[in-house]
């Protein structure tokens, strides 16, 4: 198994201010090996990838050896090309309106001047390459007309071609980094992708496969490095490890000190009923909530839980489904934000400055946006009253600095979120929909956001919180539903509602679902 290493990193660290993202990490990838890189969100995976692609500079002391050649760090952006590395990110970097040929030639066009492009020759060359990889893709097709799987394959082929042209200058067979390429692929697409990967390593190229999907890592990789909290939790030989050991390595066994703030147990579950909801990823999802209950929705990226709040609110159009609030039924296909607010809903999207608040407008304007009508007087809007109210509400929610004239973008993430949550809570919503409510929110503000959510629940609001943050879900939710492949898989309550259990279920959900499918 052990051949000469293609890539070797030792003692790699990266600090962001006081926070340690990577702490003395080593990674060794052999020639002709598929090497997995796993870890939870925040474990340091993406920091490592960003250092390799030259976006981030590591702390001094790290060492990088590629094919027995020591490369000085930090790398400059784009230098990875000369070194024979190529990256395919989840966001594939293809231009949808251009053809396969044009997309594959893109990197050549970007770096060299050609004054007479031989289009017919280029198309033939690309066709030859695609056949070589046993792919039945027509090079003249536009990317937007290809299924998602084929787009992904084109991106990988393009990356491999880049590596290949770099090799002509240097030694080595090339290293391909696949940065979570699979979350949006159906099972059959993953198969195709794996075939391509196997082809590549047969030619002695190396592949680093970044993923949080244990099954896929088990299937395709030879070895895997698991990161946890910025350190290497273990390097394992895949075929000698069981999925359970794998998951344990990923999530660790740290006991959390947090306890859920438990409210009075809600009795009836008929206040809010969602039935047969389908959207882009999720299919036939049904659940119900009582007043004063906080329901968490979670799963791995791509499992479809994250679109549910926006589908219920009508921010995105649902394909199908029915919503009932206090017995009043509405087709979700016909839902829109205006109707949703009329029904007593409020929605806090994850994209804080893009969808939740206007960064270039003052706090007072942002806070009073949905409740503006309350300030209409005979002679027009009571601007002083609006400002004063924003100041009082800001003080109640501990917004700092509490200056209503400040533009929203000048606040920290946590304080922005307090303002935006306050704007909706003032409407006393019946159903509050949250999408990643504490993403990019600092520790202190996080607790205050939780307290505000808890307070709203005590006042009788039903709350749906979609999040990948297991700790947060364990702390604020009465119940958590775990999703996989667009479907609810398991519901956790009471004793089982812990951070560890949520994470464990997220990672095991896929295997459970697949065995169910096989049977």
């Amino acid at each position, binding site marked *: 198994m052990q051949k000469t290493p293609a890539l070797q990193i030792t003692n790699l660290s990266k600090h962001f201010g006081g926070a340690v993202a990577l702490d003395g990490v080593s990674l060794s990838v052999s020639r002709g090996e598929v090497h997995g890189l796993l870890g939870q969100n925040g474990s340091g995976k993406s920091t490592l990838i960003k250092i390799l692609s030259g976006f981030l500079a590591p702390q001094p002391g790290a060492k990088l050896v590629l094919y027995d050649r020591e490369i000085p760090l930090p790398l400059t952006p784009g230098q990875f090309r000369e070194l024979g590395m190529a990256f395919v990110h989840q966001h594939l970097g293809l231009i949808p309106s251009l053809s396969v040929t044009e997309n594959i030639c893109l990197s050549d066009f970007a770096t060299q001047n050609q004054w007479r492009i031989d289009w017919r020759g280029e198309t033939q060359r690309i066709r030859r390459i695609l056949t070589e990889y046993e792919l039945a893709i027509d090079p003249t097709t536009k990317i937007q007309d290809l299924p998602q799987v084929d787009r992904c394959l084109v991106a990988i082929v393009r990356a491999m071609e880049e590596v290949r042209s770099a090799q002509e200058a240097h030694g080595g067979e090339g290293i391909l980094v696949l940065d979570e390429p699979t979350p949006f692929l159906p099972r059959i697409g993953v198969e195709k992708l794996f075939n391509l990967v196997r082809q590549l390593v047969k030619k002695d190229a190396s592949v680093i496969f970044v993923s949080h999907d244990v099954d896929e890592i088990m299937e395709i990789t030879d070895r895997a490095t698991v990161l946890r909290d910025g350190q290497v939790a273990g390097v394992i030989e895949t075929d000698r490890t069981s999925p359970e050991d794998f998951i344990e390595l990923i999530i660790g066994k740290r006991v959390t*000190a947090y306890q859920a703030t438990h409210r009075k147990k809600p009795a009836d579950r008929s206040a809010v009923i969602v039935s047969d909801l389908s959207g882009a990823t999720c299919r036939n999802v049904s659940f119900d909530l009582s007043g004063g209950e906080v329901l968490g929705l979670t799963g791995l990226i791509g499992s479809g839980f994250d679109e549910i709040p926006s589908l219920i609110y009508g921010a995105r159009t649902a394909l199908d489904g029915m919503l009932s609030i206090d017995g009043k039924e509405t087709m979700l296909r016909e839902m829109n934000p205006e109707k949703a607010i009329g029904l007593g809903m409020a929605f806090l999207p994850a994209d804080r400055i893009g969808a939740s608040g206007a960064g270039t407008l003052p706090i007072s*304007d942002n806070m009073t*946006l949905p409740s503006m009508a309350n300030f209409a007087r005979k002679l*027009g809007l009571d601007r002083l009253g609006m400002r004063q109210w924003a100041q009082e509400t800001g003080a109640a929610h501990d917004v700092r600095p509490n200056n209503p004239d400040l533009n929203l973008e000048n606040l920290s993430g946590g304080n922005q979120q307090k303002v935006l949550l306050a704007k909706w809570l003032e409407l006393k919503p019946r159903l509050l929909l949250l999408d990643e409510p504490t993403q990019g929110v600092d520790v202190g503000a996080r607790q205050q956001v939780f307290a505000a959510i808890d307070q709203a629940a005590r006042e009788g609001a039903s709350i749906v919180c979609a999040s990948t943050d297991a700790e947060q879900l364990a702390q604020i939710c009465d119940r958590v539903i775990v999703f996989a492949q667009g479907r609810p898989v398991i519901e956790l309550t009471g004793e089982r509602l812990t951070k560890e259990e949520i994470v464990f279920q997220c990672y095991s959900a896929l295997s459970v679902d697949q065995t169910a499918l096989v049977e």
Partner: protein
Amino acid sequence: MDAHNNDPISQYEARLAELESKVLRLQEERSKSSPAPAVPKNFFERYAIIGIWVLLIALFAFIDSGIYDSSRFFSWTNFSTIFGTQGVLIVLTLGLLLPLTAGDFDLSIAANMTLSSLVVAILISQGSPTLVAVVLGLLVGAAIGAANAFFIVFFRIHSLIVTLGMATFVIGIAKWISGSRTISIFGANPTLIGWVNQTRLFEVSMSFWYALILCAIIWYFLEYTTPGRRLLFVGRAREVARLAGIRVDSVRALALISSGAIAAVAGVLAVGLNGSADPSSRIGLLLPAFAAAFLGATSIVPGRFNPVGSLIGVLLLATGISGLQIFGIPNFVQDLFYGGGLILAVAASQLVRRRQPMEFGS
């Protein structure tokens, strides 16, 4: 409890919380102490434009008295002329503010004014009562705005493209219905001239006072009404507005229709001021309107299109041009002033925004 305190993570978190509260205390002290001085923080930024205007007047007056002895520039006669002739441009700029605030451009606004003024002039010259002609003129303006809105909102085409095409299309109609001639209303029915130009207040043509009234109305609308605030949110953050239950499409459409109607008001004033309309001479007002709107957005309420800033923007540009013309500097100076004014105004506002890329809604 002890074990908990020795946990390095909780120690780390306690340390973080301590540092955070320190930073917040400093921030709060700073924000508390800032309103204390008599001059607000951005006073200079807000009122610089008025200062520049006053300086410009003083400079011209100084040169004026040096060269001619008698004051040809610094006289009420000259200023009443400047004010009187700028009423049309002020109204046009105010019309432009609404779609700009909603994040859309209206490049057809000058063409719209031209067509509406011709409709009014033709109707009056053919014997229609003045009031009927004016109302029909306003309807034509609103209809052009509605056509813009239909293509922009329904087909989701960028406003620049729709209104660019609309501008030329409308000018085509204007040439067609006028036979490319100047239509005069002097002979037929001079009532409108009486309303706009012959009635004067402090020797200034009524067109200027009408413009001032419209300026006050739009200022009130943007600041003190819920539709005005919604317009602002639609322009600044369309997705935020949509998720707050605002009907973004109708807001944009209404802004474009209003800008069309206000362009027609400018057209009516132009007919009253000149006693005639023609299909070519006022198309050139498009750029000055944009220059004034963007110049206005650097002041009074910096970073926001605002009517008072725009008003002063128009007067500043007009004063500069008038002064230079009095000293015999030829006509091309207008183009230099308006074109340069637009670019410099936007460049200045970009400096305020620390050169972030400009984003206009599509």
